[in-house]
């Protein structure tokens, strides 16, 4: 398995990235749909940066790995209790 690189980012960076990123809202989805949707969408999206909004804890681990061929790095940022934003940088 090829491990994807996880990096840390700050709150300001997230706000900046959100402006130019494609945002996919996956709230309410549970396994295995976050991974399926992520894989489906990632090829169609032009943007370099994709932010996935999810409240599924597992997705923070599974989604980045599910699209590992398409991304160079990712970051998980907690936006609230049980709320996450997964930032994916496309290759």
């Amino acid at each position, binding site marked *: *398995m090829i491990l994807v690189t996880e990096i840390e980012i700050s709150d300001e960076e997230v706000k900046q990235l959100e402006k130019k990123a494609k945002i996919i809202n996956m709230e*309410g*989805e*549970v396994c*295995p749909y976050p991974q399926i949707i992520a*894989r489906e969408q990632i090829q169609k999206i032009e943007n370099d940066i994709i932010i996935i909004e999810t409240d599924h*804890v597992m997705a923070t681990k599974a989604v980045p*790995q599910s699209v590992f061929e398409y991304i160079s790095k990712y970051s998980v940022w907690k936006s609230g*209790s049980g709320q996450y934003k997964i930032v994916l940088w496309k290759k």
Partner: protein
Amino acid sequence: MIEYSGLLSLILTIVIGIGFGILLQKGRFCFTSALRDYIAFKDTRVLYGLLIGIITMMLGTSIAYSLGVSNSHFWISNYGLSNIIGGFVFGIGMVYGGGCASGTLYRAGEGYVHYWLMLISACAGYVIFASLFSIFFLPYFFTPLQIFEGFSLIESLGQISVLVPILIILSCVLYLKKKQQLNLITNISKLNISSISINNLKSAWDAKIVGFGMGIFATLWFIVWGTLSVTGPQAKWVGLTYSNIIGIESLQGNIYWNNVIFSGGNFSISLDMIMLLFLILGSFISAYFSGDFKIRMVKKNRVQNAIIGGMLMGFGSRMAPGCNISNTFSGLAFLSVSGFVTSLGLVLGVYITTRWMFRKVGCAI
């Protein structure tokens, strides 16, 4: 009506239950993920943790067994074609619903309504199964198919059973060293006290460490009670609740409830049922303090996943018998043939369902 042998057992039960809950939640440890994500993306995050957990439990159990734990603590089921079918059904339910037996529990503690639904559906499955047991499952499913006598290598080797996990660990170490993938020294040196911070604790834990922890707790549980199992005590809770609704006589007259679930007609709260409650509680506590807790409403178009998946899991776990924990975790740790056979059916069910669900995006295997 609570049965326990001593206050110590009760305290240990609570500690073990909470421990499991925390471990599962923090490790995002789900068997479905272990298998499905490997098939779909060759993601081995949880799979390695699971394997480590199984080996740890094997080692711990065989040591405890040699030191005198009664062999009645092993659960070694007779097996046959029925195991494969049961495991298969369970595997389908696992992937379609989105969680295994333990995963459903810890995620219920995290606040997912989807998994509450799955649990309720599984419980309904138990009730339906019990009513069909003597008319159908006993004469046409179990008696013709479950014909081979159960066997566990660990249990049968007795004192020398410790050699088996030691052998397995050694061969794994040698294999990994050969492939130069083992950086054990560097990994262990990273784990010093200073690296443990509140932030680290609050975020996800490495699944391998969680797997190891689960093996340890499972061994403790083996000493206190016996085989680690989830759907067993779940079914007991359903039975107890059901008996309070429709009256205990109806259940006493049902062979499945009276003889199989509550063997000997002993309708009381046992330690494993308490452990289950504290597992959910532990997961809740862990989620709450890590900021992972949120009441997550189920999506309308996924309700059928929860209900169908839960029902299949309910039936599958009764047919196999056992769920992913008792077969794939405990069963493999005991090197029990029934565990292997059921796990095979389970993996088959997971594989086919994963291929089907990921049909639009493709699978790695």
